[in-house]
C-alpha cells in the first residue's frame, strides 16, 4: 500500500494517541489535542481522521469489554501501527530538514 505522507491533522491525532496511556479511544484523544494545542478541535474531524488512518493501516482498533458507566457499551480503542510510527518519523525528519539553517533568520520567532 502506498501512502501520500501525513497531513498536519493526522500527525496531531497520531501523536495524541502516542502521548496517552491506558485505553486510548476517541474522547481522550480529542481532550489531549485540545490540552496540548490550547485550541478547540472538531470532534467529528478526529473521528473521521481515525477512520481514515485505520483504512490506511496506520492505526488499528478493537472493541473493549462492556463499560458499566457507559450503560454497558464498549469503547473502540486505538493504537498506532508500525507503519504509522514510520511515517511519523519520516514527517519529522522532513520538517527538520526544512527548518535547517533557518535559526538565524527566524531567531525571534522561536
Amino acid at each position, binding site marked *: 500500500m502506498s501512502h501520500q505522507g501525513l497531513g498536519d491533522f493526522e500527525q496531531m491525532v497520531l501523536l495524541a494517541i502516542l502521548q496517552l496511556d491506558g485505553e486510548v*479511544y*476517541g*474522547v481522550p484523544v480529542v481532550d489531549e489535542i485540545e490540552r496540548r494545542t490550547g485550541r478547540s478541535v*472538531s*470532534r*467529528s*474531524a478526529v*473521528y*473521521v481522521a481515525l*477512520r481514515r488512518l485505520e483504512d490506511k493501516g496506520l492505526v488499528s482498533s478493537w*472493541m473493549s469489554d*462492556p463499560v*458499566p*458507566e*457507559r*450503560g*454497558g*457499551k*464498549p*469503547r*473502540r480503542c486505538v493504537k498506532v501501527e508500525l507503519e504509522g510510527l514510520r511515517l511519523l518519523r519520516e514527517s519529522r525528519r522532513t520538517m527538520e530538514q526544512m527548518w535547517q539553517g533557518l535559526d538565524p533568520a527566524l531567531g525571534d520567532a522561536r
Partner: protein
Amino acid sequence: MSGSRPGPRLARALLTRALPADRRDDVTADLDEVYRRRLETDGTVRADLWYWREATVFIARFTLERLRDRRSARPRLARRDGPRRRALPISLLDVKLGLRRLTAQWGLTLVGGMALTTAMTMGAVVFGLFDAIMATSIPLDEGDRVVALQPWDGRANARRQIFAADYLRWHDRLTSVEDAGAFHTVARNLITGDAPPEPVAVAEITASGFTLARVPPLLGRPLTSQDEEPGAEPVVVIGYDPWRDRFALDSAVLGRQVRLGRTVHTVVGVMPEGFAFPMNHDFWTPLRLHETTTLRTVDGQGAVFARLAPGASVEQAGAELAALGLTEPETQPSPGGAARTRVVPYPLAFVDDFGESPIVLGIFVILASLLLVPPCANLAILVYARSASRLAEFAARHALGASRGRIVSQLFVETFLLAAASGVVALILVRLALGQLAAFLDRQIAGGLPFWFDVTPSLATVLLVTVLAVVAATIAGLLPGLQATGRLMKEGLAALGSRTAPRLGRTWTVLVVAQVGFAVAATPTALEMAWGTLRPSTLGPGFPAEDYLTARLELDAEGPGPGDPAAPAPAAERLEVVLPELVRRLEAEPGIAGATVASALPGTGRWAFLEMEPVNGVDPARPPSPLQGGHLIQLLRVGGDFWRTFELQALSGRLLNSADGLGGQEPIVVNESFVRLVMGGGSPLGHRLRYTRYSSGTGSPPDEELRWFEVVGVVSDLPASVAYGIAYHPAGPGHLQAPRLAVHVEPGVTGAAGRIREIAAGVDPTLRLEQVRTLDDLYREQAFGNKAGASALLAATLSVLLLSAAGMYALMSFTVQQRRREIGIRAALGAGPGRLLAGVFRRAARQLLMGAGVGGALAFAIDAYVPEEALQTLGGWDVPGVLPATAGFMIVVGLLAALGPARRGLRIDPTEAMRGDG
C-alpha cells in the same frame, strides 16, 4: 438522573442513521459520555444544544466522507454524453427570488404554509405510525435477519398457540434458520429485600435467545441450556434498569436472591442498558418446556424466534417450515385445514395481519395525497390570481428572452419552497405527535411498547413528505403557472393590451362559497367537541380524584387453594376469597378512608345499548337518537362498599347493598345524567331496563345481563363532568373477573401505594397490582385520545377558516387589479370612497353571505340530526349560540381579509391608472 442518560433522542437517531455501521455504537457512546459530562457542568439546555451541534457536524462530515468514498470507488466513465444538460431550468437565483417573494407576501405564505402543514402532518402521522408498526428489523446485530416462526390460522387470519412439541421439532430439523428459540411472558410480583412488591413482566425464554441477540451480559452470564433442565436451580438474568433501581449498580448482585411470585430465583447475570429482547423485558428466566405443553403466543406475549442461516431467505425458511408442518393434536382440530405455518420478520409476529404491507402503504400514500387536494386547490387559485396580476412582468421578461419554462419554473420554485418549508415543519410536528402517541401507548399497553418501536420519522416518512411537497408544488405552482403564461405565449406582448383580462369565474365563486360554508358548518361541531373534551378538565371530577389510588388486580394463574396451599386452585375461585380479605385489611389500615373493588372505575365502565320496558305499551324513555340507534350508557358492577368509598348518597330511592348481588332480582342504581338524557327528566324508580348489545368488543351481553333490571335508586354524577347515563349493578360471585381496586387515601398520607402493595402481597404473594395510579391521572390519560382528536379537528377547521380568508384576500386583490382602470376613471369623475368601496366589496360580500347561508343550513341540519345525548356520548357538549357566532365571525374575517386590497384600490391615482393601461 444523568448517570446513564443518552443525548437528545431525535439528534441521536439522526446521527445513528448517518454514521457508518461499523462506527455507530462507539461514536454514539463516546458522544453520550461527553454529553453526560456536560450535563453535570453546563445543565440540560446547554448540553442538549452542544449535542445537537456536534451531531449536525458529525452527520455532515460523515455524509461527505461517504460521498468521497463512493466517488473514489466509482470507475471513471468516459465522458461520452458531452456536457450535462440540466433537467429543469432552475437556478439559485430562482430560489433567492422565491424566498424574497415568500417573505414579502408573508400573510399568504403563513396561511398557505399552515394549510399545507396541516394536510402533510395528518397524512404523515398516519403513515409514520403504520411505518413504525410494520418495522421489519430490530435494533440488534443483523436485526433484519431475525424472524418469527408461527402457526397461523389462515381462515381467521390470526395467530395460533404453539405446542412445545412443534417448537422442538422445528428446532431440531430446520436448516434454513439458526439459534431458534422460544419465549412467553408471565407477570409476577417482584419481591426484593424491604422494597414493596412490584408487578413485573418476566420472559420465560430459551438460552438461544441470548445467542441470537449477540449481546454479551454486562455482569455474570446469560441463561444456558442447563438452566432449562428438570430440577435445575431457578435462576434469573436481570436488566440494567432493575440493577440500577433495585440493587444500586452493586457488582455483588450476582448470587443474590429475588422472589418472583412464589419462586425464589438466584441472579446469575445483568444485561447492558437498552437490552430488552425479546419484547420489552428486564427479567429473563429459563423456559422449561418439560413443564408446559403450549406457549402462550396467541395474545402476542410469546413467539418462536430464529435467525436466518447465512444465505437463506424468509421464503426459503417459510417453505422448509411448511414442509415440516404442525403436529395437530386431536384436542385442537383445524377445520378445513386452515392451520398453516409462516415465517415473518420478527416485529411482524406481534401485529395483526395487514395483508400485503406494500399495498397497504400505497393506500396510505394515496390517502395522504388526497388530504392535500383542498389546500393545494386553494393555493393554486391564489397563485393563478397572483400570476395573472404579474402578467406585465412576465411579458417583459419574455420579451427579453426568458422562455416559458424559465418563467414557470420560477413559479414552481416559489411554491416548492413554501411546500418544502411546510414539510419540514410537518416532520417536526409528526415527530412530536408520534412521540406523544408512543408515550400514551407505552402507558396503555401491558409491559410497554416493544424495544424496536421507534417513532422517529423514518427515511420512508421523510420521502413521503418530500413527494407530497413536490405534488403540492406541482398542483399549486406548476399548473396555474402554465395556465397564466399560456395566453402570453400565444399573443406575446399584445396580451397586455388585450381587453379580455384573465378572469376568476364561476369555479372560483363555488370554491369560496364552499369554503365559507364548510367553515360555518363544521366550526360549531368542532367547537362543541373541543369544549366537550376540555370540559372535564375545566370543571374537574367534582370530588378529590387525586386522593383515590386505583389499580388493576390480577392473580398468577397458579397459586394455593383456599384451604390447602399444596393444591392449586383456579385464579377466579381464589379471587372470591382474596378480594374481600384485601378490602378488609385495607380498611383497617390507618390513613385509608375506604376501599372497594368494582368491574371498572367511575367513568370507565363498559358501553352498552339499552331498552326500557314499556309501561302500558308506552316507552317511558325519550325517543333514542337515530344516530346511535338506541340509548347508550355505561355499565359498572360495584361492591357494597363502593358508595361509602366514593361518598355517594342516594338522591332518590336507595343504594345497593351487599345482599343485592346474591341471586334473584337484580336491582340497579342510575346516575343523574341517566335521568336527564334517557328518561327526559322523569323519575326512573320502578322502571325496568335491559341491554340489547355492547357498543364495541365481541358478542352480546351474557344471558344474565339480558334480563330486566329494576331501577331502585338515583345517585349524583360521578365524576361530575360525565355526560352520559351510568347504571350501577351489584357485584355478585363470579362477576369480578378483572377487578379494579379504588382506595380513598386521607389527604396528607404519603407512601400509600407501597403500603397497599405490601398489604396485597400479604393477602396473597401472587396478587399483583398493575397500573397503580391516582384516579385523577387515569382521567387525564383517558382524555388524551379525545384531546388528540379535538386538536386535529380544530387544526383542520382553522386551516379551512384561514384558507377562506386567504381566498377572500386573493379575490379582492384580483378584483382591484382587474378594475384599476375603472376605479381610476370613476375616481376622476368624482365618485366618493364609499361608492368605490361598495363597488369593490359587492362581489366578496355576496359570496360571503352565500357561504354563510349554506353553512348555516348545514350546521342546523347537523344540529338537528345529532341530538344532545349522541353529541355527549361522542364526547361533545352543546354550546348555545355557537352557530350565529361562527357565521358572524366568518363574515368579519372575510371582510377583514378583503379590506387590505380594497384600501389599495382607494389609493389608485386616476391619472396613473389611465396612463398605465392606455
